């Protein structure tokens, strides 16, 4: 059996994954112009400043868009279909991509309110921030 691929933290992203292990969702915020950004980037796409820090996020938002997959595009998802992949817009104004849990499959709508939860993957040392309907 092929196991699911896991995130590989880099110097840029390790703060995000370390915070997730503490069950906290963080976002990059530009020190110069104050804008949040995601996914992690070295420089601000708004003002190009390289000064930034991790800021705790609310973990709340709504479903901007989603897709339902009836095919496992990776062997590790073979017994999980159908599954949802959603783009979630956070209160801070940036969007994150997440799956939604099986119980949300038949009730998700564009605009549905969501909240983050933390999935500690056993035996991996990895915690995934995921989203579910509130």
């Amino acid at each position, binding site marked *: 059996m092929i196991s699911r691929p896991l995130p590989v933290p880099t110097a840029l992203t390790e703060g995000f994954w370390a915070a997730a292990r503490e069950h906290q969702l963080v976002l990059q915020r530009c020190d110069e112009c104050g804008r949040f950004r995601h*996914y992690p980037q070295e420089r601000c796409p708004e003002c190009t400043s390289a000064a930034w820090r991790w800021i705790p996020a609310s973990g709340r938002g709504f479903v901007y868009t989603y897709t339902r997959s009836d095919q496992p595009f990776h062997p590790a998802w073979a017994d999980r279909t159908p599954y949802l992949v959603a*783009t979630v817009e956070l209160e801070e104004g940036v969007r*994150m991509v997440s799956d939604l849990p099986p119980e949300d499959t038949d009730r998700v709508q564009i605009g549905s309110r969501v909240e983050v939860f933390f999935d500690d993957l056993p035996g991996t040392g990895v915690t995934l921030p995921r989203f579910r309907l509130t």
Partner: protein
Amino acid sequence: MSGIGEAHGYPPTSLTQKPDMAVVRSLQLAGAKAFAMADVSAKDLDCLLIHEGFSWYVIAGLEALGVVKPGEGGPFAAEGSIRLDATLPVNPSGGALSEGHVSGMNHLIEAVRQLRGEVPPERQVPGCSTVAVATEGNFFDASVVVLRRDTA
């Protein structure tokens, strides 16, 4: 070649962070530049070649280039208005699904052949004299060129 335009979307980083994922701002800007240089509008086109790395990009392109209003691209295509004998023939060669993904180069070739009358008759746009070719890459950098047959 009577008009060219190139433009890049904002932010330059990620599809998911676009203000509206279904609006191709770069193509709006690139199209506007190319059409202004060529002094044409979408209504003047005899044929439109849209490089479609993804199928929905034909619909997005129709809207971004002003052929139809936002939200009308899907119905416009579904009702047959982009067929060879309809309002605006789009990708008469079949586009990327038929020719492969060559980042729009084959669309450019098709445009020139259409203007020269060198394609097989079953896909020749009658009286083809003004064509636009729209290409995109990387969600979403875009370029548009307007090609015309010199009838003078």
